[in-house]
């Protein structure tokens, strides 16, 4: 056996022994996702145990270095772990913006002290992070942000407002883009980390068309942030922000499978015209699945174009919207029920409405197309 085959066999045995049966069932609702954090209430003992045993091995973040709470796995080993988890239908032990967004940015731009301090907390699910990027006046034009951080000698003084802050009301800490200079648009932005419990921070959930409130408005009123809680240099935060956005887009594009695989296999459409549309969708969905695998391999090997997450984000989110649209058609009037038990609280309708945001959050589809046109295709004036 090759080393990788040995690793696969050991991993399979370990997962069989350690993944609780309750954690091998499909995620049916938001409540089934383990986000962790100071205020997290585990849904079950199984959810707690699954997080603990995986974090113990560093497998909540399998490819991060062991020194920072990761599993130290190679790209090939991490893929094997993913495949073996998929094989038994294991849920991710932990989902967090710390893992998918902040962690990679800290690994690249953080000081050794910052990595040693923040990364293990993320890996163990102790701190739940939120992302302070968009503002009322800075959506697609993100670099136009106005939230101000003044240098007050021993601290930064932060004032301003963020919007579309995912789960700000549930988060422990925020990674936040602030303006530290007005002399240059992109060159006056810094990247700060601070505790959401700091005096002067307040949040207000936003009710969406889906009836849920995953996003908040976040207000900063004379918030004092210690000077060492900046990532990268002062006024160089845009580099960190862009790098992190690449990871955010990669994460969102992964949602393109929207539960994965063939839509027709689960909906069994009887109507021939709908069946034809769903078959056309399935060709696109399975092809995109192949693209996701190829992209992940190329990204890890450094062979992907740096702007390619924009392509993935665009294609994946448009596909997920289409999946939800077709799932609604397949469900017919059943799918219109909003709060009945039969519809699991209107899960189809809520998922459909929620999916409309996929091509807006993390940079709209139009912004992603602009980025592809400019940075990959080299079209003039883009």
């Amino acid at each position: 056996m090759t080393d990788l085959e040995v690793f696969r066999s050991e991993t399979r045995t370990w997962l069989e022994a350690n993944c609780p049966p309750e954690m091998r069932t499909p995620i049916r609702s938001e409540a089934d996702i383990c986000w962790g954090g100071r205020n997290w209430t585990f849904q079950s003992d199984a959810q707690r145990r699954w997080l603990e045993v995986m974090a113990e091995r560093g497998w909540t973040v399998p490819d991060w270095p062991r020194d920072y709470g990761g599993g130290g796995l190679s790209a090939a080993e991490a893929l094997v772990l993913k495949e073996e988890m998929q094989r038994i239908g294991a849920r991710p032990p932990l989902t967090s913006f710390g893992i998918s967004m902040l962690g990679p940015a800290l690994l690249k731009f953080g000081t050794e002290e910052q990595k040693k301090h923040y990364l293990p907390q993320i890996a163990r699910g102790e701190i739940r992070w939120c992302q302070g990027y968009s503002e009322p006046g800075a959506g697609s034009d993100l670099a136009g942000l106005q939230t101000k951080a003044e240098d007050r000698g021993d601290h930064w003084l932060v004032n301003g407002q963020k919007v579309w802050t995912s789960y700000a009301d549930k988060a422990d800490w925020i990674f936040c883009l602030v303006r530290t200079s007005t002399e240059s648009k992109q060159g006056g932005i810094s990247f700060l980390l601070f505790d959401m419990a700091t005096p002067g921070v307040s949040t207000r959930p936003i009710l969406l068309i889906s009836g849920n409130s995953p996003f908040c408005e976040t207000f900063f009123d004379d918030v004092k942030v210690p000077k060492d809680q900046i990532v990268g240099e002062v006024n160089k935060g845009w580099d960190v922000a862009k790098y992190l956005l690449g990871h955010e887009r990669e994460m969102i594009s992964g949602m393109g499978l929207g539960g994965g695989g063939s839509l027709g296999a689960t909906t069994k459409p009887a109507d021939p015209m709908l069946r034809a549309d769903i078959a056309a969708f399935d060709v696109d969905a399975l092809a995109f699945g192949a693209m996701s695998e190829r992209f992940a391999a190329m990204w890890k090997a450094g062979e992907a174009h740096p702007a390619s997450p924009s392509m993935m984000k665009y294609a994946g989110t448009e596909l997920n919207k289409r999946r939800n649209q077709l799932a609604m058609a397949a469900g017919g009037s059943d799918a219109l029920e909003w709060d009945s038990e039969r519809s699991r609280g209107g899960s189809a309708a809520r998922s459909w409405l929620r999916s409309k945001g996929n091509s807006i959050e993390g940079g709209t589809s139009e912004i992603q197309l602009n980025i592809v046109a400019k940075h990959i295709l080299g079209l003039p004036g883009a």
Partner: protein
Amino acid sequence: MTLLSDDQKMLHDTAASFLAEEGSIAKQLRHWRDINCKDGFGHGLWKQFAELGLTGICIPESHGGMGLGAVEAALVLEEIGRNLTPSPFLGTALVAARAIEGTAHAERWCPGILSGEAVLALAIDEGPRHAPEQTALEARRQGNGFVLNGGKSFVVQGGSADMIVTAARTSGAPGESDGITLLAVPNDASGLTIDNVALVDSSKAARLGFENVALDADAVIGEVDAGWRPLSRALNAGRAGAAAELVGIASGASAMTLGYLKQRKQFGKFIGEFQALQHRAAHLYAEIEIARAAAFKAAELLDSGDERAELYVSVAKGKAADVASLAVREGVQMHGGIGMTDEHDIGLFMKREAVLGELFGDVYYHREQVARLSGY
């Protein structure tokens, strides 16, 4: 998804530079079209394929080939697509080679394929739409052989082929996959008529008539009534290969169009500065990347003998044909009036896409396959 190995990258580089240089539109496609060549491709170039070893990619090492697989064939076919190079590569070196693999016919034909002297074809369709299980061409037992009566259409390079791998019905009824037998039909068989037809892309495909064509028992490829297996093997190789060639067509058309967007000026600006065109170009880029990923996934699964291979072959062929169609339509539209002229090459991509999109099943055929194989 595994990334390309160093050997695969080297093979790709060899094929890419050879086809860009020797297989260009001016040197091959336009040349043979304009002199109304009966083959639609050049035998000289096919010999050059052989000299580089490319004709032997899918021939087993025991027969003197490279013993490689669908991934390597896809690397070559993407470059063939990009340059619109007419050649027997897909039909002879891939599809026919796979059909006769492991049979006595491989002994007979592999040397010719390797040397670039033999051209083989596959006769499967009998109507305007691909439906292999509908095979009706009658092969009636006579003595220790068979007598064939019926017809075949869309036999690519059938008029140039030394031997035609022909799907015939030896038992059962059209619609059944059992009862089909693959037969090796020589081009000079008595009672065989070959109507060599030029297609929209200047390639040639034959309509075949069989009138009491008598064949010996040793014409059988594989086993009697069990031709579906070698036929599926050949068709799946062909579909995955056509998918890769379609990705090449899409890439070639897209590159030509992007070049035009960066060079053509209207209203005092490069037309590539207009966001209406930028977004369409960016969308097309994403689609081509996805189609390429699907084509390589299908090839990888074929090579590893994975049970999902057939599903992903249909995903790949369906997706690649869809995307190549988008690429050539956007290509002609974005070129404006010049795109409608015969002088400009962009229209040649549109013509080739139409033929390759149809070959071995169009997008509708493969969507149906995906639905069926996914259990709905």
